[in-house]
């Protein structure tokens, strides 16, 4: 019993202790971790569908800007902007990427790499949506408790929701597209429509993370399209294990607190991320989570046969 329950209960116990015992600063870190975890999960859902994105900042930034604009110009409260930004962000991202749904592998990756960079430059050149200054003074959450509980709840909802989704027939189709898109196509399934749906789900999740971050920092500006938001989900997924959904979540909970510990090092943190990427993809390409779970299942144990 403990053998099965242990690894599942341990993170929850640690997290529960974290919620109640952590000093305020680390609670903020926990919120950050949950947000990045959600972003990493949305990256991983795309990987499960065979779409590798090098620009998760697109989803993040679109959500952040929608929430920021609605709140800044129209004064909508956070509990309205969050769902609006989620749905509208998902639709917008799926819409932007719809013309390139047919692209595969590295070609799709390059499109996603370019898009957030281009949006930044367009905002810079046209000075729309606050231009280089960004929009500040946005509404924040009523208390840090709401913030923390809401972010963690969303994180777990996304994590377990996605894991369940992958077990259904719908998820099987998505994984089939990753493994062999042509055979899925030839069994009469419209893979482009499924890819568009996956993009909507991932886009909405990423946009939620962006919108949440906007209200946490009370600011939205050009940094939301920065490279960090594209790199971190990839790093989390590579460290934790791509395509497993639990992996990126574990990876985010390793990398974000680590980067807080290393805050004093400044720009060296990104160097460490880069090296993490290289070392893990060369030495442990399956990622920490699949490796650990495989090793855990190799422990000898006695089972009573009735």
């Amino acid at each position, binding site marked *: 019993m403990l053998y099965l329950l242990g690894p599942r209960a341990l993170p929850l116990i640690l997290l529960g202790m974290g919620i109640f015992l952590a000093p305020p600063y680390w609670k903020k870190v926990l919120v950050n971790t949950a947000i990045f975890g959600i972003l990493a999960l949305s990256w991983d859902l795309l990987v499960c569908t065979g779409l590798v994105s*090098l620009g998760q900042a697109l989803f993040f930034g679109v959500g952040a800007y929608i929430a920021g604009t609605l709140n800044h110009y129209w004064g909508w409260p956070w509990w309205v902007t969050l769902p609006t930004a989620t749905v509208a962000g998902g639709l917008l991202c799926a819409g932007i990427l719809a013309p390139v749904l047919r*692209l595969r592998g*590295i070609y799709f990756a390059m499109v996603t790499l370019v898009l957030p960079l281009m949006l930044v430059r*367009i905002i810079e050149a046209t000075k729309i949506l606050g231009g280089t200054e960004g929009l500040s003074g946005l509404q924040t959450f009523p208390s840090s408790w709401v913030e923390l509980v809401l972010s963690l709840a969303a994180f777990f909802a996304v994590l377990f929701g996605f894991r369940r989704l992958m077990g259904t027939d719908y998820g099987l189709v998505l994984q089939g597209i990753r493994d062999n898109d042509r055979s899925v196509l030839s069994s009469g399934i419209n893979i482009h429509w499924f890819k568009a749906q996956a993009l909507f789900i991932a886009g909405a999740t990423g946009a939620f993370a962006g919108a949440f971050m906007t209200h946490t920092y009370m600011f939205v500006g050009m940094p939301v399209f920065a490279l960090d938001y594209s790199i971190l989900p*990839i790093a989390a997924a590579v460290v934790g294990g791509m395509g497993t959904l639990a992996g990126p979540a574990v990876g985010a909970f390793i990398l974000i607190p680590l980067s807080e510990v290393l805050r004093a090092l400044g*720009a060296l943190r990104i*160097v460490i991320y880069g090296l993490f990427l290289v070392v893990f*993809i060369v030495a442990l390409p399956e990622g920490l989570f699949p490796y650990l779970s495989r090793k855990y299942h190799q422990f000898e144990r006695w089972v009573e046969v009735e």
Partner: protein
Amino acid sequence: MFLGTLVYGIVNSVILALVALGFNLTFGISGIANFAYGALYVLTGYGVWILLNEVGLPLFLAAPAMVVLTAMAGALLYRVVLIRLRGMAISEVIATFGVGLAVLEFFRYLGFIGFEYTLPPLLDGSLSIGPVFLDLQRALIVIVGVTLTGVLWLFTHHTRLGLAFRGIAQDEHTAMCLGIHSDRVAMFSLAFGGGLCALAAVVILPIGTISVDAGYDVLLEALAVCIVGGLGSAVGVIVASFILGLAQTYTAMYMGSHWMMIVTLVAILLILTIRPSGLFGKQKELEERI
């Protein structure tokens, strides 16, 4: 005004072609999209700067030394990292991107930011083409660009190693049957790509300052030229760099320099959406889209 823009547009095109040559060579031969390319470019810039100002070497020694060192860095990148990831395109991209990120941000960490980080021009003075004045460094860039393209053509068509490069690019298995070592050629392709990148850096960087962000921009420009021209196609690189170079310069002239990079990025998006193999690339229909 128009003529001046045209001349500077052509210089800009040659700069783009120089920047893209190395990236294109590596991709054309080994199929590795070297996302650490911008880092190699900046590495050369700071390397020459350090050799000049800290070690005290003269420029004519420092520049070739750095070209060789960067080529070796490229080879090392293949030997240590990429050889373990051969054939997994996404892993290659993530790994080279990680290396590039680490190198670039390491320079930022060391504090290599500011206007004092410039390289002295190899040639001083200026010449006039009709009413337009052009400094000799920019003229030198054009000369180097044209010569390098010619030398590369001769190299790939008339030397053993160059022919081996093309053999691997055309059909890896047949080339291996004929005794061409695939891994060694791939290593050389990264070394040559790095060397070309370093050469480009040595002649181009004296025009402006060396900055970490230039590394990301260079990578994007190389990507843009290669994608528009067709990844791995030599003619494509030259045509695409002229299209993009002139478009960039005229946009900067009439709409402001903010729009320069947007033109490049929009070009990448348009080409990838309409014709992913580029203007001159070989169509690989089911591989690139379905």
